[in-house]
């Protein structure tokens, strides 16, 4: 049957065309295509790997940040507490100093009052003495004959002194 007998001419042309096809594609097309496909696959794998790594890093960074934040909060609290304490201390100190000072001032005021009092007493004594002396002088100067005169005089003097 002619359908199943190979034709020499057709075999020849088929061989020529197919070999040219193989040559052209094998040299210029398939290696490029396969290389590109494999490179792209590798690239995608790399990308996925990279993303996974980045994700891990990000998680780590997040945890780190959270830790740092907690630390900072604690520190802040500590500092606040310390500040509070210092403040209290300063206030206490100031109060103490103020009280001390006030006492000192009071004491010195007392002292000066005492002094003034002493001085006034001294003055009073001197004045009294002087007055007594003046009275005595008057008494002496006057003729103190009678007792009546004397009494009169004393009364007068006392009155004067009392005024």
């Amino acid at each position: 049957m002619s359908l199943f007998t190979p034709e020499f001419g057709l075999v020849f042309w088929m061989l020529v065309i197919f070999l040219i096809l193989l040559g052209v594609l094998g040299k210029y097309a398939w290696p490029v295509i396969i290389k590109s496909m494999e490179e792209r696959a590798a690239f995608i794998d790399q990308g996925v790997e990279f993303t996974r790594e980045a994700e891990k890093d990000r998680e780590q960074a997040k945890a780190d940040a959270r830790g740092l934040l907690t630390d900072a909060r604690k520190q802040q609290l500590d500092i606040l507490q310390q500040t509070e304490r210092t403040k209290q201390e300063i206030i206490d100190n100031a109060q103490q100093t103020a009280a001390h000072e006030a006492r000192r001032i009071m004491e010195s005021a007392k002292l000066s009052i005492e002094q003034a009092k002493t001085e006034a007493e001294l003055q009073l004594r001197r004045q009294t003495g002087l007055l007594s002396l003046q009275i005595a002088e008057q008494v002496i100067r006057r003729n103190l004959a009678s007792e009546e005169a004397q009494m009169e005089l004393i009364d007068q003097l006392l009155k004067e002194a009392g005024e």
Partner: protein
Amino acid sequence: MCQLRFQRDSRVAFLALLCLVPLMGFARPAGEEEEKFDLKEVIFTHLGDEYSWELLGGAEIHLPVIVRDDAGEWHCFSSGRLTDGKEYEGFYIAHEGSYAHKVVGRTLAGEEYRPLDFSITKNVVAIGIGALLTVWMAFALARFYKRNRFKAPRKGVGFIESLVEMVYQEVIVEVLEKDARRFAPYLLSLFFFILLSNVLGMMVVFPGGANVTGNISVTLVLALCTFVVVNISGTRHYWREIFWPEVPMWLKVPIPLMPLIEVFGMITKPVALMVRLCANMLGGHLIALVLVSLIFLLGALGDAVMGGTIVVSIIFSLFMNVLHLLIAFIQAYVFMMLSTIFIRLARE
């Protein structure tokens, strides 16, 4: 809901139209001259090779005839000079006998002989078209990669890529492993050439319609290529398995029984490839042709019968063509896959 209804309506309309076809048969003017329909002739002309390519509407492309006569002289002329049984430079196309539909010459003694025929026939042109399509397709993909590095193609080029990926990653790399890169160019070219030729052969009009992969000469060359590739890349182990297999001595020493069987197996593998592809594609063409011819064959029985046959034939043809499209793909895949496996067996 609306769309569903529309679909159903259009289906009903289509069926109604089909029912009208038998009636249309009656409308044909009577008294037209009926040509005798020779089924065998038509089918064998379509399945075989031709010296010209018929286009739509009866136009023809006359292809060059290149022959070497018995005196060793070359003749090259257009096949247009041989139409309708004309004779040119002593050559004509035989109509019957063992050289039917082939260019033959006459010896001085008046005997018919077949010259050495290197004509660019319909099949040669179809092979060229298939090869060009393969090249164009592969280069479209390669060019895409050169222009867009690390990018995935879409649409048409993406489809080509998915085919390449399927063949390369799932067959070639799976089977050949480290040898994959070395044999991939051959196997990929083989697959795409067969696939495109198969699909082109299913198209009825130019540039398709030629029965390329259903032609034994074409599959012979393809199988021969696989045979050569397998045996050239065969390792020492492969050759030892053939000529000195591990069997009892008496099977190979006085009479080389096992080596003979092995050599036979070496040859039957590509022969099976050749016959499988050819028979499958030939069968597909044959079914399509017979189903269409049925219309004309039964048309002789009357117009109503012809109309009915048209409906049945078209539905069957459609079904068979869808099946044939599947087979076109499967056969290309199987040819490539078996070639891959044979190479692998030789590389063990």
